[in-house]
């Protein structure tokens, strides 16, 4: 096994990977942008090297600097996390060429699956069902419109190089087609440097269900159950669960077999996720394969009792998985709520300085956070600050525990989507496990109202706190004994004045 591994990422996923590295006695090192010199992922590492200014294109995305940092820090391998360089085949190749181990699938697999249209062709050839559509970018707006008209509205526009909902647009009719197409292309160009967009049939009552796969270099290829990811806003996942309330054991086995076939079709090694679009009729279609660790992997870990990052490391080190399909049995139910620094109603990002922070604890709660009580959430990066997961012996207990965990969570200074999560958990369709990707477009229940006396309690608390502070100011300073004990307080005060 490796002695030192460089995590080429930031935020919660870097922290999460470092925890498994520490579990295995491996020294975690990392890289940072100028803005992140004192970010949580750097604090948690044994060493870190600055790779450029705040903009990720000039720092976290500059592959040669990351490789150079790994060499200088004496790392034997690089874990890319998700996002950033994780699905960059050229980077994967450069890592290997530099004599380092790439903790991810072979570059060829990344390439095949990275282009959605290539991916479609490859898996279709392996007998994997795909969504009706045209498997190449439209040459021009006129052709795109012709394809859409032929498939019949509604259609989905998708960035050929895309992912994470960027460059995606659902178009209901011809009238709004042109505006949607140009917006999708602009977003695709900005996010991926490639404005190619293609047109797909929109599946009715769509569910987003994905299968976790895990392959080693010795021919083992297993699926580790599914995740239901249909609670989405702007095509970005908000809440995920495992197992899917929509999937039964037979369907799981069929989807698992298809996912493994898709992985084998591209010579996959490591952890990957095969995303499916599932219609209300339970037909499922290959959407794409994410050739990396997935944001929502913890729900799989909780239900299947595995550490996917540890498995990634073992596979990258050449070890066999040492598991059979029969070893991977689900137990209970897990839910993940992504905590975004954003307005819960408008979904607008809300970067800023965190001014109070408490995470939940206790039975059935797992927290993966990328911030601490003194963090500033910068504008330059992803607005997700943490993932709250709960496990329960059944779905109802997992949901109830999530409600409690959200109630225990205190985050002040930035606006978060905790209120949105409460409203989704209270939604009858969600509670019943009968929902599709349209859930967040339906009217949500009101957020729970504050208890009576809430306003008076806040007013009394703020006034009492102020009173205690005023009393303290009236006491002459310098009576504290023979040590200067005020450093923290004063440092703090300065921070407030300085902004």
């Amino acid at each position: 096994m490796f002695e030192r591994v460089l995590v080429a990422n930031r935020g919660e996923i870097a922290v999460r990977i470092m925890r498994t590295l520490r579990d295995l006695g491996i020294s975690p090192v990392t890289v940072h942008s100028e803005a992140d010199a004192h970010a949580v992922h750097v604090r948690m590492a044994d060493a870190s090297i600055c790779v450029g200014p705040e903009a990720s294109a000039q720092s976290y995305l500059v592959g040669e600097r990351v490789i150079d940092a790994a060499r200088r820090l004496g790392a034997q391998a690089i874990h890319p996390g998700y996002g950033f360089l994780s699905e960059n085949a050229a980077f994967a190749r450069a890592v290997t060429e530099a004599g380092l181990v790439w903790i991810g699938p072979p570059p060829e697999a990344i390439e095949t699956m990275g282009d959605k249209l290539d991916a479609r062709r490859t898996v279709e050839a392996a007998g994997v069902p795909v969504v009706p559509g045209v498997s190449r970018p439209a040459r021009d707006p006129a052709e795109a419109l012709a394809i859409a008209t032929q498939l019949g509205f509604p259609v989905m526009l998708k960035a050929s190089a895309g992912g994470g909902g960027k460059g995606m647009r659902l178009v209901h009719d011809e009238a709004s087609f042109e505006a949607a197409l140009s917006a999708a292309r602009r977003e695709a160009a900005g996010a991926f440097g490639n404005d190619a967009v293609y047109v797909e049939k929109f599946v009715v009552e769509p569910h987003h269900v994905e299968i976790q796969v895990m392959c080693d270099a010795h021919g083992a290829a297993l699926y580790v159950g599914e995740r239901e990811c249909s609670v989405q806003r702007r095509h970005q996942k908000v809440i995920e669960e495992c197992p899917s309330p929509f999937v039964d054991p037979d369907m799981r086995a069929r989807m698992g077999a298809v996912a493994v076939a898709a992985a084998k079709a591209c010579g996959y090694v490591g952890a990957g996720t095969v995303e499916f679009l599932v219609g209300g009729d339970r037909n499922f279609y290959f959407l794409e394969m994410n050739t990396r660790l997935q944001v929502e992997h913890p729900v799989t870990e909780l239900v299947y009792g595995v550490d996917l990052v540890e498995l990634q490391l073992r596979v990258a080190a050449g070890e066999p998985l040492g598991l059979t399909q029969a070893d991977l049995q689900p137990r209970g139910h897990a839910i993940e709520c992504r905590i975004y620094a954003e307005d819960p109603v408008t979904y607008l990002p809300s970067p800023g300085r965190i001014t109070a922070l408490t995470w939940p604890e206790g039975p059935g709660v797992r927290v993966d956070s990328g911030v601490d009580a003194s963090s500033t959430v910068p504008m330059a990066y992803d607005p997700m600050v943490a993932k709250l997961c709960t496990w329960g012996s059944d779905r109802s207990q997992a949901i109830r525990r999530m409600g409690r965990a959200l109630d225990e969570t205190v985050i002040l200074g930035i606006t978060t989507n905790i209120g949105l999560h409460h409203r989704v958990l209270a939604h009858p369709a969600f509670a019943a496990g009968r929902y599709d990707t349209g859930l967040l477009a339906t009217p949500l229940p009101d957020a729970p109202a504050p208890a009576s006396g809430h306003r008076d309690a806040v007013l009394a608390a703020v006034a009492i706190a102020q009173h205690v502070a005023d009393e303290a100011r009236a006491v002459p300073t310098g009576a504290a004994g023979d040590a200067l004990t005020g450093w923290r307080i004063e440092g703090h005060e300065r921070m407030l004045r300085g902004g």
Partner: protein
Amino acid sequence: MRYTIEHDGESTPVEVRRLGTDRYLVKIGDGEARVIDAHADAQGVHLLDGAHSRRVRLADDGRSAWLGGHTVTAQALDPHAARLRARRGDTVSGGGDTVILSPMPGRIVQVQVAVGDAVVPGQGVVIIEAMKMENELRAEIAGTIASIHCQADDRVEGGAQLIVIDPAEG
């Protein structure tokens, strides 16, 4: 001591007198004064009001509070600021519906209107990008674009004035 506490945009006078360690007499607005057991520390303030237990977390910049899963803006105003607010008639917000403010720091992607354009409620006027996502800001009222204070590629701060709309009559 008498304080002016601003809570979700509304100012309320609150009087506090210490009665002992962790015990206070508190009078909120025109309400009855009552005895509250309370303890203030770095975690905020815990109130035992009769038997009711309430834990109020306070932000370390003294500008917001959390209680039972709910977050509110709440702060003690200094006497000068409180007097100013009183004179202004308690208006806290900026320009109301007639001004489109940037909801966060970000980069302007596109200005979708020109001065003199008529707009209807819900019509997109500016696209701003932050944290790698594009967000369309929309007019909340019908009217005419009076002035534009940004252009594509500008970096703007949260709260920056971007567009001013002349409300339509009626």
